[in-house]
């Protein structure tokens, strides 16, 4: 699985929304219903799974699913 697939699978698990419904435009809070505990759980899960570190400022910039996928592309 690619990093992007890993991220989408985690989002589906944590938000409870089926993976098929999670497209790039979805907003983490408004559409997927992630409150801050859930968002942080997602970030830490992702960091662990991909062995990356996401800075607080980078995390604070990601508001949509697309933002996350693009971030994973830029980090290689």
């Amino acid at each position, binding site marked *: 699985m690619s990093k992007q697939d890993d991220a989408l699978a985690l989002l589906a698990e944590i938000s409870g929304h089926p993976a098929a419904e999670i497209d790039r435009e979805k907003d983490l*809070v408004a559409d997927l219903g992630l*409150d*801050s505990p859930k968002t942080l759980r997602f970030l830490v899960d992702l960091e662990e799974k991909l062995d990356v570190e996401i800075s607080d400022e980078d995390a*604070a910039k990601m*508001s*949509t699913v697309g933002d996350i996928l693009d971030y994973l592309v830029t980090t290689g």
Partner: protein
Amino acid sequence: MVEATTLIEALELNAARRPERGIHLIDGRGRAGEGRRYPDLLTSFQAAAARLATHGVRRREPMLVALPTSREFIEYWVGGLFHGALPVAMAPVGSAGALAVHLQKLDDVRTRIGAGTVVCSESLRDEARAAGLEELAGACVTAAELDALTPRPDWKAHRAEPDEIAFLQLTSGSTGRQRAVQISHRSALHNARGIDETIGHPLGGPASEVLQSIVSWLPLNHDMGLIGCLFLSLIHGFDLWLMQPKSFLARPLWWLKHLGEHGPTLAEAPNFAFQLCVERVDPEAARDLDLSNWRAAMTGAEMVRPETIDAFCERFGPVGFRPETFRPCYGLAEATLAVTVDGVARGARTLSAPAGTDHGFGLTDIVSVGQPLPDTEVGIFAADGTRVRDGSIGEISVKGPSIFSGYYNDPEASAECLVDGWLRTGDLGFLDSGELYITGRTKDLIIVNGNNLMPHELERIAENASEGGGSRRSAAFSIADGADGERVVLAVEVSETDADRLATIEREVRLGVGHTVSVPLADVVFVRRGRLSKTTSGKVQRNRVRQQYLDGKLERLTVSVPAPTAVEDRDTPQ
């Protein structure tokens, strides 16, 4: 024993009295690092203070610390105190699109309190610059830059007076409304001593004598994290095990593991944290825990829910957690931290909710949050300002040495909540046999996951969303969601009836709220103009709107269904 009269003296005495203890940071994988002992920390606080002097931080000047829980936060926040500046901790940046709002808040607070220096990370400064906040970026200094400075050689620790303001605590609130609570050395010491005594009392002595450590994930800008964990340790000499809030929220198991590993332990957290442990800790993994050394679990900062206490005891009882470990408490930043603490330790005690209890919180049984701290008086007042008898509900008011002296640079707001020597808390409750029970709030405050949200901040988003231009009226309020605590509902008056248009407004409201406070809305209710209850002066009555919502009497707008062609027009692929 010599009694310290300022925080600086207390830290110096503690380093001499408990040289073997100190602060241990837990990393992002849940592992504890080396730790630093109090004598070593004392030296680092003095060095940090002397470097802040070199940097040009002036005494009596507010100094913002916008760092996550880290060595740098502790050194420069406490260093600021040693220097005689007024350190102020800023909440860490939220996630999911919250950066822009965070920077704006930071800049706003900086301007309002006149802080010349903001200690922060390199990336925060870069983001401030990228956002065009040049003045903010100019005030920023990183811990690494401070570390590289030569301490000013003539620097001497500030000789503070007990009644001098030691530091500021920011109340939660929207942009432009955050207030800075002034806490004196005397108040901070009084509160920490009161907690140490009251928590320790049923265990056979001051908590710092009977217990060994505190394990905390609470953010250090939160009064419970700053006073209840960091200062309680720095003053009374607990071993402090500190993890990032992020680590706990993602991995609650790590908090519980550390609670079992560092001798007799104290921990503090809001109700939602205990609920999170019940919901998120895998029962299989929980079997390896040993919570028998966890001797006091203070629960406060939001409504204490009996169902959470029961669920936690049931889940973690088999691994040694005892019901009497729970010590409900009540407090607020304006009282330094704690007002009442359960000093009996016989398990959570409840009374059935009397008439007049706020239904919005969904409480049928109310947990006692304990007795007032030593030298602290709690009075319950009716709306007309008279004191009510035991058992009657009224506004909780507090008197005593822990009460703040006012909001920094805000005499008007100070005069509103300090009346005849009483701190008017804005919380509702009653006294029974000397114990306090919380039943609701007069102030329109929403608490989600231990974070305070101001309704008017959310309403402003609704009123301005999608070309609203601030002309709409709305009401934000919270409703109970069982053990999950409070959830937020927004009721909005609109003149539009077109379904598409309303969907656009709703989405903008949800996005705006999500990116401002990281909270998903439970419901957005559109009503016709003029349908929200208002006072004669035109102020929206949030409590009445909420009651109507709960009773199903808030009339939802019937939307006009758009013509099929309109749907097709809209339905073009993006």
